[in-house]
């Protein structure tokens, strides 16, 4: 497995090469360098996965955990050190496949999408940087390495969201994304500090007796780490950066803000899963509640957004909520007794990465064709863009949970896990699954059906199908979405490492399919036609709710209030004033007093001999008197 080093080295070299040469390279050459290196990474990742999963199971029935590289990067204390290395276990190998596949598709797609953009080279350099960081994150051998790459994906995301750096919205969005996630990372960092101190190591496998002695510190550390995960994975109330992050180029949204980086929080919880189960099950359940609320909240908001990328963004938040819930409802490490959610979560992560990337890439093709993000500018596009239409429909069916598409299988496992945990959780998640189907088909109909496309309104511009470089990735991902459900995922990944046979639980599957079909039917009834009387009537009847949901329940206003009013107005400005006027004023007044005092007494040094003589005589006289008296 020594070749795995190239998984990180190739994108890094491509980043350096493209980044340093920059505009010296022709755009096409830069794109080619980036794409070829990622293609090589993808091949390597498939080879790794093949070798890893065919190597057979160990004596304990689980796949071995390999560590082909691990070296001390930064020694800290006698026991603590930051190591850098590569860790291969079922979930990291699975993530390698996901990341390299989606990244490769996005690289190819971007040839068409970003064609002629200024800064093409920069774009590919950042994509390489991101891919390197994300791969480094998933193969981390210890929590601190994860944090290092965690920060690097954060900055790649910042750079890519702000790719159109002349647009004020893009600047604001990138800033917001970075600061919100950094705030969450503060929790992550403190969690790591606590973990390192009490576990005596940064690795994922501390000694049990050390942990047992840590007492309540371990749940605290795990909880704080989850705060970091919640920031990256856009859990309520730290989700606010993700919808704005859609200001970045659409392929970037597909790669970073749908398929890979935003699931880092899920991956973090999965990575720390044995510790969560062993030392903080209550924290784990807390994550389930956070995830469930987020899933519901985001699904409701997604129902009323009109910007197609925003709908998809909220849908992503909602789906990540599903993954977190699946992990959170686990009560043991045994998949047959309460540990099913772990496998379900990873499965959903895998299938969601594919179909959500597909949805975003389709959205990119649509935006490319109509030059707008707004649903109002679309409608009737199915005639103009057949490939995009077909692939988008497949992805919608997958996310809605219709068999035989991949989303059905993974979502079914999640719902089964929820019902095992508590019936109300299962009911709630099924309801959210129904909402998902509803808003996705609302989106689908508004883009491809509804009113016929009005070319006159768009300035005589007729939409056209995207070029080959863009449709090939769409078709590929759609194909994956069709077949991925049949992968015996439990044989590769499960909470205790043993092979687990996925068997559909018929009541759960039936209910969810029925709910999804009803929701789709509802969406068809409401949104298929050119006029949408039902939808309009609902919007006016529930005006307050509709408006609140449209404004995303005013969470962004709260954020604005905190940053602008509190941090700048109430903390920074008074501190800066205090510094200039009190601290510095004190120093200045010292100088002034010294100066004033010297002005007062400088009369003594007049240079006048008579005065000096008088003072001298007076002083002498005084001394004589004193001496005589005492």
């Amino acid at each position, binding site marked *: 497995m020594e070749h795995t080093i190239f998984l990180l080295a190739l994108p890094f070299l491509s980043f350096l090469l493209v980044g340093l040469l920059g505009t010296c390279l022709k755009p096409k050459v830069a794109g080619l360098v980036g794409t070829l290196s990622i293609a090589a990474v993808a091949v390597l990742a498939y080879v790794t996965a093949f070798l890893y999963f065919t190597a057979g199971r160990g004596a304990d029935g689980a796949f071995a955990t390999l560590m082909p590289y691990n070296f*001390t*990067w*930064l*020694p*800290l*204390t006698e026991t*603590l050190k*930051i190591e850098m290395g590569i860790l291969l276990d079922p979930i990291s190998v699975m993530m390698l496949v996901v990341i390299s596949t989606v990244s490769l598709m996005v690289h190819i797609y971007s040839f068409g999408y970003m064609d002629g953009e200024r800064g093409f080279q920069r774009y590919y350099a950042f994509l390489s940087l991101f891919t390197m960081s994300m791969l480094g994150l998933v193969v981390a051998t210890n929590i*601190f390495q994860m*944090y*290092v*790459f965690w*920060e*690097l994906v954060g*900055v790649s995301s*910042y750079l890519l969201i*702000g790719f159109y*750096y*002349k647009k*004020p919205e893009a*600047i*604001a969005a*990138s*800033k917001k994304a*970075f*600061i919100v996630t*950094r*705030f969450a*990372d*503060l929790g992550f*960092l*403190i969690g790591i*500090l*606590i973990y*390192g*101190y009490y576990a005596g190591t940064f690795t994922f496998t501390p000694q049990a007796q050390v942990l047992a002695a840590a007492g309540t510190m371990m749940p605290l550390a795990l909880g704080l780490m989850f705060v970091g995960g919640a920031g990256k994975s856009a859990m309520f109330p730290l989700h606010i950066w993700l919808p704005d992050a859609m200001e970045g180029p659409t392929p970037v949204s597909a790669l970073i803000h749908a398929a890979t980086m935003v699931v880092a929080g899920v991956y973090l919880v999965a990575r720390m899963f044995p510790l969560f189960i062993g030392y903080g099950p209550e924290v784990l359940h807390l994550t389930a509640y956070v995830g469930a609320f987020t899933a519901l909240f985001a699904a409701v908001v997604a129902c009323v957004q009109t910007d197609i990328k925003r709908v998809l963004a909220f849908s992503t938040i909602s789906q990540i909520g599903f993954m977190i819930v699946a992990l959170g409802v686990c009560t043991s490490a045994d998949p047959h007794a309460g540990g099913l959610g772990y496998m379900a979560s990873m499965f959903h992560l895998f299938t969601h990465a594919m179909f959500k990337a597909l949805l975003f890439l389709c959205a990119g093709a649509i935006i490319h064709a109509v030059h707008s993000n707004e649903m109002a500018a679309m409608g009737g596009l199915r005639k103009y863009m057949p490939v995009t239409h077909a692939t988008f429909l497949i992805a919608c069916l997958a996310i809605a949970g219709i068999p035989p598409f991949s989303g059905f299988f993974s979502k079914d496992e999640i719902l089964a896990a929820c019902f095992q945990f508590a019936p109300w959780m299962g009911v709630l998640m099924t309801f959210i699954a129904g909402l998902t189907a509803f808003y996705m088909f609302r989106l689908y109909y508004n883009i491809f059906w509804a009113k016929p496309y009005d070319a006159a309104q768009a300035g005589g511009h007729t939409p056209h199908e995207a070029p080959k470089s863009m449709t090939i990735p769409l078709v590929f991902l759609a194909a994956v979405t069709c077949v991925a459900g049949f992968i015996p995922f439990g044989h590769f990944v499960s909470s205790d490492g043993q092979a687990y046979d996925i068997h559909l639980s018929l009541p759960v599957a039936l209910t969810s399919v029925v709910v999804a079909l009803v929701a789709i039917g509802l969406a068809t009834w409401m949104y298929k036609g050119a006029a949408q009387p039902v939808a309009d009537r609902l919007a006016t009847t529930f005006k307050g709710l509709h408006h609140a949901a449209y404004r995303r329940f005013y969470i962004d206003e709260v954020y604005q209030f905190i*940053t602008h009013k509190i*941090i*700048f107005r109430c*903390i*920074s*400005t008074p*501190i*800066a004033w205090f*510094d200039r006027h009190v*601290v*510095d004023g*004190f*120093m*200045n007044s010292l*100088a002034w007093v010294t100066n004033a005092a010297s002005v007062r007494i400088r009369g003594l040094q007049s240079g006048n001999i008579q005065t000096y003589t008088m003072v001298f005589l007076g002083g002498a006289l005084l001394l004589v008197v004193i001496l005589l008296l005492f």
Partner: protein
Amino acid sequence: MNFLSLFVLVPLLMMLGLWVARNVNQVRGVMVAGASALLVLAVTLAVLYLRERAGGATAEMLFTASHVWYAPLNIHYAVGVDGISVVMLLLSAIIVFTGVFASWKMQMLTKEFFMWFCLLSVGVFGFFISVDLFTMFMFYEVALIPMYLLIGVWGSGRKEYSAMKLTLMLMGGSAFILMGILGIYYGAGATTMSLTELARIHIPVEWQRIFFPLTFIGFGVLGALFPFHTWSPDGHASAPTAVSMLHAGVLMKLGGYGCFRIAIYLMPEAAKEQAWIFLILTGIGVVYGAFSACVQKDLKYINAYSSVSHCSLVLFAILMMTQTSSTGAVLQMLSHGLMTALFFAIIGMIYGRTHTRDIREMSGLMQVMPFLSVCYVIAGLANLGLPGFSGFIAEMTIFVGSFEVNDVFHRTLTIIATTSIVITAVYILRLVGKVLYGTVGNPAHLQLTDATWDERLPLIVLIVAIAGLGLMPWGFSHIISDSVLPVISQLAR
């Protein structure tokens, strides 16, 4: 003669060379030759030092030499280096080298400017090679005086005010230091001024209680100890580019170095007793500096307050008194020195073009000067502690080291200090968003040109150093960690 003395001799020779130089080209020639020689010397020293250590040298100071200077007070010209001073010398050499290029286009009184610049270097290098208290103090003073003229004559804005303020406050600090040094000398029995020998003598605790705070505050003034930091924003804002670089990059490190090497090393009992007071002050400084930076409007003020925050973190880590946190403190000195020099260099170059440092009057510079802007973004990301750059290494070492101290007071302060990573992100991104991104607001700025070769060179050198330290930290961490051990074992005594 010990070869360490070359660090003092080379700048002196440079002054001689400048004196005979007849035109700007000769001045530049002398400066480049001298600065390169210093850089080579520093690298050679680092290599030799590592070889000696690898060869099993265990003495605290290596390459020592001592000559009697003034026998009645036991003052020696004594030199010697350990890992910390090697790192500091390397930092100083890099900053001097890049500073020369950053003032390439100095128009007014070029020769005189560089002569003072060299004298400043004499003081800085002399301070780091000395192991005799009095010699250290003398070099410290040598480094301070030229600052007054460099800012007062070649500065900008309210330069006389700033120069006077800076000099007076630092002189006040050195009065404290002098008292502290005399206290240490007499408290230890008036037999030696040598650092290593003093460390073996126990100074009565009653003496320590008086002279520790004097020494610590004295050096702390230079190390931006809250509330004695206010010389820094004005001083940096008025100073010419190279002087800002040298001052924030190296001179402020003299403060941290002195606090660690003299105050804590020689007076450990009092240090342990009184650390909590200074921990609170530095803890305030870390957050306070960062918050103040959020609302500044002048590029240099933003960086000056950012320096206050980062330098407070140095003192904070020193006061945590664990081996890891002290290692982190030295790494932070190194890292902050490189980063802040990079910042000041870029700000100077931007100011040279736009003739303003007000962030409200600039926008969209990325389009007109991409090279400078990209360097600025890199400097900003390094400053906010991005992994891969030196700031991350230093901060993480400090945080992990500080967290080792297991009580509520220290833990609380550590957590407060960690919040600075978020606030730093706020002011850096605000700045980047306002000044570099967006569209060009002032049409006159469209005519501006990007960096020339003499400007690119120092930026590239600094970025390579920052990234090198950030990507391969283990070597530096190792050298420093071994060298802070004597101080830490002194504390455990």
